[in-house]
Structure formats: C-alpha cells, structure tokens
C-alpha cells in the first residue's frame, strides 16, 4: 500500500487537572491513506475528539500535554513544527469541521468575511478572487444563492446551512486530510443525509482522506472504510467496516452494536445494553478499563491491561485489545470483497 498520509504512533494526551491526571488519549496508533475514510467511534469521553484536536495542534497546553512516538503528515513530524509552520498546515493541508455549527461560526462577522479569511491566510489571492472561490465553495456544498450568502451573518442561516458553511470552509483550501468531528450530530436526519452525500461526493472529486468522529454507528457504517473503536482513551478494536459490523470482536464493540436500536429485525425484542456507565478518566480501574462492564471478565482483566493485538485473518488487518482473543476460536471474516461497491477482483462478467 502507498505511504500513509497521516501516521500516528502511540499518541498520548493527558490533562493535568485538580482532580488528578486525566489520560484522555492513551497510546493510540493508526494510519490514514489518501482517499480513505476512517471512522472513530466511542462514547462521550472516550477520547475521539481529543485525538482530532491533537492532530490539529489545538489541545490547549497547559493543562494538556501531547506526546507521541510519531505523528507525521506526509512525512513531516507535526509535533516538532513551529507555531508558524503548523499554521501553514492547519486549515490548509489538514482542516477540521467542528461539531456545533451554532457556536463554531463567529456571529459578528459575515459568512464571506469568515470564509475569505481562510484563503487570505493560506493562499496568495486577491480579495475579488477569494470572494469568487468562496462563492464557488458554497455552491459546491449546495447552498443556493451563494453570492448573497457571503454578505449574510450566521444567524440568518438555518442549522443545516451553517453546517454546510462549516464544511465549505473546511474544504476551501482543498485539504488532503479532513477531520470531521460529529459533522452531522446537530442536524436532522434529512439534512444529515444531504451532508453525508456531499462529503462522499467531495471525497471522490478531491481524494480527501477523512477522519470521521461520531457516536452514530449508522453514519459510520455508511461512510467508513476502516473503523477505530475507542474506549476510555484507548483503541480497543480496529478493522475494516464490513467485518467489524458483521463480526465485532471486542466485547465493547459487541455490546455497542447490540445496543443500537434498528429499523430492521424484531421491534419487540428487548434492547441489549451494556451495564454500568463509562469510567471516570481521572480514576480508571486497574487492568482493562472495560472490565467492570464486561461479561467475559476474568481475574487477569482486573490486574493486567490488554494490548491491541493483530488477529489472524487472510486479507485484511484487524486488531482487538482483549485477553479473550486467544480463547475465541471462531473464524474471522477475512474478505471485504462482498461489500457492495468495493472492487470485485478478477471478475469481468
């Protein structure tokens, strides 16, 4: 496979608070390739958003401390960049769509002012050109009358429109990596469907790699090539989307998938739920963080911490951090070939 565009090894982010040290991200490693969508799922407080903020260099330090064995973008080490160099990457090569369109836009500035600012910082363009590029950007994301919108203020637009403005802003410089933090969570489903279609289309035309942070497993299923599951700051499972949903391996992933209400299947069946609640990051239990809620818990789980291990499969790589891996003997689904629009190798029928 080609070189990864983003390569993160053993990323650790901790916050030193009055209540003790909070390890928000604890040893996360992953790679992202061009044109790929990586889903990042987990409950609130599992470290999904902080991972993204760390990639953008946006973790406030102090109280935050960001460390990693490696965190590189196209071979450049993001951690050793100066503020100035980082600014030339951020918003230009790597950009971010924030969760809340209501609060992420400045209410005092027109849409046009906020959009052209991005171009003024990163590209050498005249104001007139910048305005034209921004209008085209708004047009790309399906906003009617883009020229008129440039002179409007955020409050004059609906939530869906504002989120589209955020997406347009994130895409203005044609970034190579887009970090989308719950891009559709604040939106209604019909608008969500529009935005997701749009992100897919833009990915196809620009080859952008996307990290999609969300707690909505339906959105992840439809968008992602690979999925990372996080729990209490750690990666507990990583796999291609198809095999992960078909045959989740880690007990947390299994529990998560079982607890999602669905539009298919028996509506009268009781929903499975994971007992208990997510742990306090400042006072994590010893051993596996998921052990107190896990049905497969053994003594080993409360004394030792499992690491992410590669599982034996034929075609795709998948890993899970659980002591039960060795014991579970079921065969894993190795191929992703029967998943819809994936390339069908060798068939010319």
């Amino acid at each position, binding site marked *: 496979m080609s070189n990864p565009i983003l390569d993160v090894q053993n990323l650790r982010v901790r916050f030193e608070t009055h209540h003790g040290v909070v390890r928000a991200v604890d040893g996360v490693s992953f790679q992202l390739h061009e044109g790929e969508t990586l889903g990042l799922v987990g*409950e*609130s407080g599992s470290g999904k958003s902080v991972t993204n903020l760390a990639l953008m260099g946006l973790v406030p330090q102090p109280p935050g401390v960001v460390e990693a064995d490696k965190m590189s973008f196209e071979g450049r080490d993001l951690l050793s960049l100066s503020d100035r160099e980082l600014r030339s990457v951020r918003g230009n090569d790597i950009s971010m769509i924030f969760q809340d369109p209501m609060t992420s836009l400045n209410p005092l500035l027109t849409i046009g002012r906020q959009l052209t600012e991005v171009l003024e910082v990163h590209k050498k363009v005249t104001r007139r050109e910048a305005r034209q590029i921004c209008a085209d950007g708004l047009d790309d994301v399906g906003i009617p009358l883009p020229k008129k919108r440039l002179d409007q203020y955020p409050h004059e637009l*609906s*939530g*869906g*429109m504002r989120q589209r403005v955020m997406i347009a802003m994130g895409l203005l410089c044609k970034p190579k990596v887009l970090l989308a933090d719950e891009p559709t969570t604040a939106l*209604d*489903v*019909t*608008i*969500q*469907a*529009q935005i*997701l*279609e749009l992100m897919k289309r833009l990915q196809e035309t620009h080859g952008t790699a996307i990290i999609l942070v969300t*707690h*909505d*497993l*339906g*959105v*992840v*299923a*439809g968008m*992602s090539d690979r999925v990372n599951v996080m729990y209490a700051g750690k990666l507990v499972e990583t796999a291609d*989307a*198809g095999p992960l*949903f*078909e045959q989740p391996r880690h007990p947390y992933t299994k*529990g*998560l*998938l079982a*607890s*999602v*209400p*669905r*539009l*298919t299947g028996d*509506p009268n069946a*009781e*929903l*499975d*739920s*994971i*007992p208990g*609640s*997510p742990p306090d990051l400042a006072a994590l239990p010893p051993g596996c963080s998921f052990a107190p809620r896990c049905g497969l818990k053994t003594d080993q789980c409360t004394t030792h911490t499992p690491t992410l291990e590669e599982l034996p499969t034929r075609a795709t790589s998948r890993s899970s951090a659980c002591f039960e891996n060795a014991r579970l003997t079921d065969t894993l689904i190795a191929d992703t070939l029967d*998943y*819809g*629009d994936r390339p069908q190798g060798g068939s010319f029928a």
Partner: protein
Amino acid sequence: MLEVTDLHKHFPIGKKGLLGKPAKWLHAVDGVSFSLEKGETLGLVGESGCGKSTTARTMIGLYPPTSGSVKFEGEEISHLSRSERAPFRRRIQMIFQDPYASLDPRQTVASILAEPLKIHRLAKPRERKLRAMQLLDAVGLNPRHIHRFPHEFSGGQRQRIGVARALALEPDLIICDEPVSALDVSIQAQVVNLLEELQERFGLSYLFIAHDLAVVRHICDRVAVMYLGKIVEIATRDELFENPQHPYTKALMSAVPHPDPKIERTRERIVLEGDVPSPLEPPTGCRFHPRCVERHKVEGDRCSTVEPQLGERSACHLSLD
C-alpha cells in the same frame, strides 16, 4: 384516555402595532388531533421545529392553547385555571430531554424526589424519604445514594432520576420529551428498557416524543409523524414502518442510516432537497410540496393549492385519491 382535537398554538412574533396586534404569527402547532389509550405508547416524531414539543407542552397547559380541545378521561382540561388543573397535573407527568439541565444542581436527590409529594401533599415528611428510596430502587439506582447531588451521577443515572421524579406521583400518563437523545448508545438502551419495564409494571401510558425513528420503533405502539405543525401520517407501528404512506415519512425513514455497511452500501435513499420552510410563512397547499419527490404523481397544481387533510392515515393527495 387522552383525546386531542384540532389543537392550535400560535406564537406572536415581532413588535406590536398601534392596535396591539403582533406583526406575525408563528403557527407552531396547526390543527393537531390524536388520541391515546390507556397503557399505550404513542410516538410523536419529526424534525426540529416541527412542533412536537410544543404540542406536548400545550396539551398539558404549559402553554395556553390558541384553540382546540384536550380531553383527559373525558374531561376538558385545556381551559382550566391553575388550581383547577392541579389534580390532572398529578396524573400527567413529564420526562425532559437534558438530564443535565432538568435537575436542580443544589437539591439532593431526596429533595428532588420529595418535592412533587410535598406540593401535592401526598405523604408526610417522614414517609417522603422512604418513598424517594423506593423510587430510586424502581429505576435501578442504589437507594442509599439518596443524599447525593445530581453532579455525582452520570448522564444515564441522572435520566433515571428524572424518570423517578415523574413516577413519584403515580401518574397515568408520562410525556417523554426526547428522553434518550442526549445519552450514549449503550446507556440509551438501558433507559429505553427501563421505560418499557416501568410501563408494564405500573400500567403507564406514554406520549413519546423523539426524532430517532429506530428508538420509536422499539418503544411505540402507534406513531404520528409531524411536519411543520401538522400530523402528516398516523398509524400503528407495524403499518408505519413496513409500509409508510406519506412521502415525508418515506423520506424520513430512508434518511436514517443503518448500522450495517452491507445495507448502507446497497439501499436506495431518498435525499430531500432543501430545508424545512419557516413556520412563519408555511408553503401554500400541502406544506411538504416544495420538497416532495412524489409531487409529479399528482395531476395539476393541487399540491401547491389545496391542503390535504389527514384522513384515516396519511395527509397526502396521493393516498386520499
């Protein structure tokens, strides 16, 4: 048990003119009718701003209705005064969306749960504590945590306290306004299961307001779909989910992403164009017609001129023909 007929709630918007008339009226709820049987769960679904919550709040008198009637066990309750309403308030309770905002941070759980009993003079001070402990036990929390404050609980536990508070007065009907949408998936399932268990145990009726169709499918017996202040379709759960009639219901269902990549990559989606129009100036005729994908199937300009009425099931010219 509950019968709502042609309920309207209009809010005045803008400055009042010389004669004290407001500039505009926002038609939040515009002629909503439905009924609810004892022990039944009716789902009220739709997108933000469609009037789901306003319907519920108007129904129980949190907002005075503009017009229409609300009958609870045959008695008209929509135009009662505060004091006349008290006995009904005891029997209709509410669970709110945000478990962080709906509990007073300065009260202990004991005092939060005892307050309804105090107001309605239902228990002596000494009994109240015992009752509060029973309630905590009923919603699956440790009764010994009764002297804790809301901040000592997680989001899911707080929502359980909200449920316990609604149960305190032994109501017949509980209005659940997006009770699980602020919770994480694994916790959401716990609360959904709790609500179902309590319904069976205490014979409760629920009016369940939600935008998540999958949750609604799990918990509701019948479902009403709202769009811009009106019910566009109402049916039993199985009829609605297996064979949606109204084009809006179809679009809404097709927009819900399935947590299964196989289904996601192959299924057909109806992606609606544009946004929900402003309820200040709702479209003429059928309110959904500017976004409707099946509009061309109706001859002439009926969709944009004639408003379809909610018949047996769906308010659409197609199904009325």
